[in-house]
């Protein structure tokens, strides 16, 4: 396989993806990602010089609206889904010492 994914790469991508993979998952991820990238490398066969990248198929502009509140206070309903809640706020683990 042409793309060899190193331990360092998997560690780095794990940080970007906010995933803590087990050793077994890391080995599997190295294999899977290498294989997928080998396959994606097929795109290099195409000459894309001068072609504009297309993120959207139709010409799209920003869609603006007046900054007016249209919904009511739904904080109670919203917080019901939160794993942690206190005093009408989301409760999160301590972020710094």
């Amino acid at each position, binding site marked *: 396989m042409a793309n060899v994914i190193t331990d360092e*790469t*998997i560690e*780095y*991508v*794990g940080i*970007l*993806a*906010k*995933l*803590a*993979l087990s050793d077994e*998952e890391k080995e599997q*991820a190295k294999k*899977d*990602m290498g*294989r*997928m*990238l080998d*396959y*994606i*490398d*097929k*795109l*290099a*066969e*195409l000459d*894309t010089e001068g*072609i*504009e*990248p*297309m*993120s*959207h*198929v*139709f010409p*799209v502009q*920003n*869609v603006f*609206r007046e900054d007016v509140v249209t919904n009511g206070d*739904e904080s109670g*309903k*919203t917080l*019901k*889904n*939160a*794993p*942690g809640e206190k005093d009408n706020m*989301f409760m*999160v*683990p*301590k*972020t710094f010492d």
Partner: protein
Amino acid sequence: MDILEYSAVALSAAIREGKLTATEAMEAVLARIDEKEKDINAYVTIDREQALRAAASAQERIEKGELTGALAGVPVAIKDNMCTEGMLTTCSSKILENFVPTFSAEAVINLEKAGAVIIGKTNMDEFAMGSTTETSAYGVTRNPWNTDHVPGGSSGGSAAAVAAGECFFALGSDTGGSIRQPASFCGVVGLKPTYGTVSRYGLVAYGSSLDQIGPLTKNVADCAAVLEVIASHDMKDSTSINRNDTDFTAALVNDVKGMKIGIPRDYFGEGIDAEVKNAVLAAAETLAAQGAVVEEFDLSLVEYAIPTYYTIAAAEASSNLERFDGIKYGYRAEAFEGLHDMYKKTRSEGFGAEVKRRIMLGSFVLSSGYYDAYYLKALKVKAMIKKAFDDAFARYDLILGPVAPTTAPKLGESLSDPLKMYLGDIYTISVNLAGLPAISLPCGKDSRGLPVGLQLIADSFQEKKLIQAAYTYEQNEKKI
């Protein structure tokens, strides 16, 4: 007539004419669910009491003359990645095991306004990532035609529910074929609209530039009626398009005379099953016999669609799924040390293998040093693929081909080799990259009795051509 034999449109007509009630229709569906669900597992959530209450309320409004539309009183199943206010919405993931939305998706609201009645939420591949409905955290869904086989995916629960009579129609979502391929495997009709036709508000995002909601139905007339109801311009989805041609049922015309249909030679090369090929080409003959002008052509770039798709979809998924962090909703890991550890443990425990695989790949192709070589390159090839379709539609009204290279594989055959599973999407994913509408409809069965799907693809905003040709095929299918 057995209630479950009705199409959605015929059922609503019968209810409005007073031949039966919306409550009787819902009771019939719930009884079928009781009978079939242990074998099929099409649903993640069924709220019987709420469904019966809503059916009774719809009946009342029909009797008062408040609900007169084509779907009034019809029980519908919703794919579990569309938010339904007050009803569990899991995306078939552990990370959303307890998520009860505070609002409904716009497409769901449109259906409810039209008087359709929600039965429950259908199973899917986790976060719509998969082609078999086997990556669900809530068990696999089985194909009603043969329960040793998959129903396809990711909208496998919706397709199986329609095929098994566990609903009268369903909504699915299609990012790379997730409506059309399960429709094909389950022998039902599925349509992916032009990007922007149906609001994505309330659809849990996978690949935002590719995702579209669409109908899964028993026949083409139902498909047109459902699309007509769910299509709407929505300010809450900034990619929503304001169309004034959404009277799709007007296209239910049995006539394809002079319609130009192109068959891409590149769709019938290596890898396609002979029985699928024969069934699809026989369907082309049926349309030709009705006066369509059918010819072969070279679409080009077909083999580049899959690597382009998986780069773009994974990139968008890695970004979209950042929101699942154990703070605002869903699962949170029990033991952790500090905020970052909580994020990582929550996500690692909450997501399944296929979702992690795509998040990892997406994070990689977007990372500094690889962005240009992978992500930007894929966006350029996407432009080339769109151009190839533009060229084809300068010559043809429709493109005709298979939906998938094979009929439904056996359970367990696909997941062991993800790349092989991805290759099965070859005929569907370029449609999403180019934002086009496409329909899948049954065109026969293979020697094992498994359904084969015919795919028709149209230029942007040409759903009516799709519906007209599909309807004509359906009306003349057996007359050849």
